[in-house]
């Protein structure tokens, strides 16, 4: 029974991280019709920046409530760094290609993926970085007879908060209306006087921010390592294919499905852990090409 609770918590923890990455990917696709292959590496970049900042300033010796507070406040720095990076890349690399066939944008993001992989290596070195001092400081809670790190619950909380904030932002603010209008009909939005170029930068930066936030929240629990972006990108793809490209609800449901299926597969038949996810994605694309929540 306790093991079941732990597994459910693990799944939700994993879903929270996946949701952050996939929602950013989905937002960028929804507004700009770009499949960003570099998204996983934006996530990795955020993870490295946060781990480097927290680990560098506080080391492993930070103790006491004040130090913990400081570390928690410093943690999202990776998300802001990635958002700034995205805001700089969209006008320089992507904007000149909007008039060309979509293959070219896909290729540019593939090039960006390779570049970012090595930029991370160049800036942070090849050794894994972690911000585990936060997990240590937060301690553990007991569930029945088993111990569970409190920090994982914090991540679940952040995931829920991010989901609510994003929903409010997209469906309840003026900027959200502009975003949705642009995503539905770019030329009409432009004809109505919206500055589509600015909406694109903002959407791309927000998407990148989500990826960076995913990276930031993950480093206290697991180390940032080279190549982490590739694995997460494909999982995020599976999430948005299941949920529907460009749909926020889809990203949430997709993230939950992927993490629960994965946890169950690891428990019962670990060899199929990844294969079953890709098969689900392929099956969904076959039956409902637009995903569970996607619009045609």
């Amino acid at each position, binding site marked *: 029974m306790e093991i079941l609770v732990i597994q459910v918590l693990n799944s939700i923890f994993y879903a929270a991280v996946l949701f952050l990455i996939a929602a950013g990917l989905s937002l960028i696709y929804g507004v700009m*019709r770009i*499949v960003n*292959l570099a998204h996983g590496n934006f996530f990795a970049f955020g993870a490295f920046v946060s781990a480097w900042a927290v680990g560098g300033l506080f080391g492993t010796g930070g103790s006491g409530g004040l130090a913990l507070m400081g570390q928690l406040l410093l943690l999202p720095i990776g998300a802001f760094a990635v958002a700034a990076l995205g805001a700089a890349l969209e006008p320089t*690399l992507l904007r*000149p*290609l909007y008039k*060309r066939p*979509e*293959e*070219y944008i*896909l*290729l*540019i993001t*593939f*090039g*960006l*993926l*390779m*570049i*970012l*992989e*090595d*930029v991370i*290596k*160049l800036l942070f070195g090849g050794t894994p970085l972690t911000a585990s001092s936060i997990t240590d400081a937060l301690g553990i809670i007991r569930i029945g007879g088993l111990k569970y790190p409190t920090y994982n619950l914090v991540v679940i909380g952040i995931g829920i908060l991010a989901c609510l904030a994003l929903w409010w932002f997209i469906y309840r603010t003026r900027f959200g209306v502009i975003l949705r209008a642009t995503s539905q009909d770019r030329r009409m939005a432009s004809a109505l006087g919206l500055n589509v170029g600015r909406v694109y930068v903002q959407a791309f930066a927000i998407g990148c921010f989500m990826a960076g936030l995913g990276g930031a929240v993950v480093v206290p629990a697991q180390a940032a390592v080279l190549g982490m972006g*590739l694995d997460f990108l*494909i999982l995020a*793809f*599976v999430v948005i*294919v299941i949920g529907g*490209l460009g749909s926020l609800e889809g990203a949430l449901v997709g993230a939950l499905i992927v993490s629960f299926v994965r946890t169950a597969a690891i428990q019962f038949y*670990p*060899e*199929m*852990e*990844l*294969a079953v996810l*890709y*098969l689900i*994605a*392929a099956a969904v*694309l*076959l039956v409902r*090409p637009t995903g569970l929540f996607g619009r045609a």
Partner: protein
Amino acid sequence: MPSAHSVPSFLRLLAVAVPVIAALALLPRFAGIYQIELITYGLAFAIAALGFNLLLGYTGLLSFGHSAYFGAGAYTVAFIARDLHVHSMELCILGALASSLLIAALFGYVCVRHTRIFFGILTLALSQVLWSLAFKFFWVTGGTDGIRVPRTGITLLAGLLDFRGPGAYQRFVYSYYYYVLAIFVMAALVMWVIVHSPFGKALQAIRDNETRAGFVGIRVSRYRWIAFIISGLFTGLAGALWVPLNGLTTPEVLYWPFSGEIVFMTVLGGFRTFFGPIVGAIAFNYLKVYAVASSQYWQLVLGCVLVAMVMLLPTGIVGTLGRLADKLSKLRKS
């Protein structure tokens, strides 16, 4: 069956191909053994890129999952050599063709129902099924260690050439070079006939306007499926030829960034031309080998080249050279 219209273009092909093949055949007299190995790799990748381009350049479908067929070919050769103790490379290639045909037919049947970005994601997702199986079922596939295919276990031309004893390495490199060159020439010729056949023209019609092609009476998804299978066969053949050269097959050739590399080769050479993928594959192989040798940040180098190509030379090496040649001939006339 070449129509009357395509006879001049067949002559043009001969004018380009004969000198190039002659130069490649004479190459071992001038180039060192290492260069010969690199060219062999390049020719194997060129077959993969030719197959890939039947989908991208001629049918208008961007696959991000061609690592699946390359890897299927490579792993089939490894399984045949290891488990069936078959040494003849020809039998291994036949097996690899059969397995990549099967997988391409299955995956293609699923994928051609979609186009554009959905097609790309679906091919990617399916190729990753194979990757995760190769990665996880380590007692069959060796996991990340892969499967070794030593050149001593391979014979060419139905056992006529084997590679044991002193000087085997040199003999292997040179004979295998000619072996791959011969298969490459045949494969390129077959592909040339395919794209210039009525079938190839129909694919181009589908690429340019799917709806009209359908109205003319072309069975669009049937044709796409056949193109997908041919494309997978070529890529599987390339994977089979690559294995003895590399001596090892690992899940890396099934992982999706390798699919990206195949796309990269094709775009580097230019996907609007027949010869683009060939030039691109050989150039990419050189680029990657020298980038890896000269810097630990080789991905940065490759990424920058790709970004620069897409931004500045979207028609690739062959397309750009072709335009330059056009300009020169115009200048000379005026």
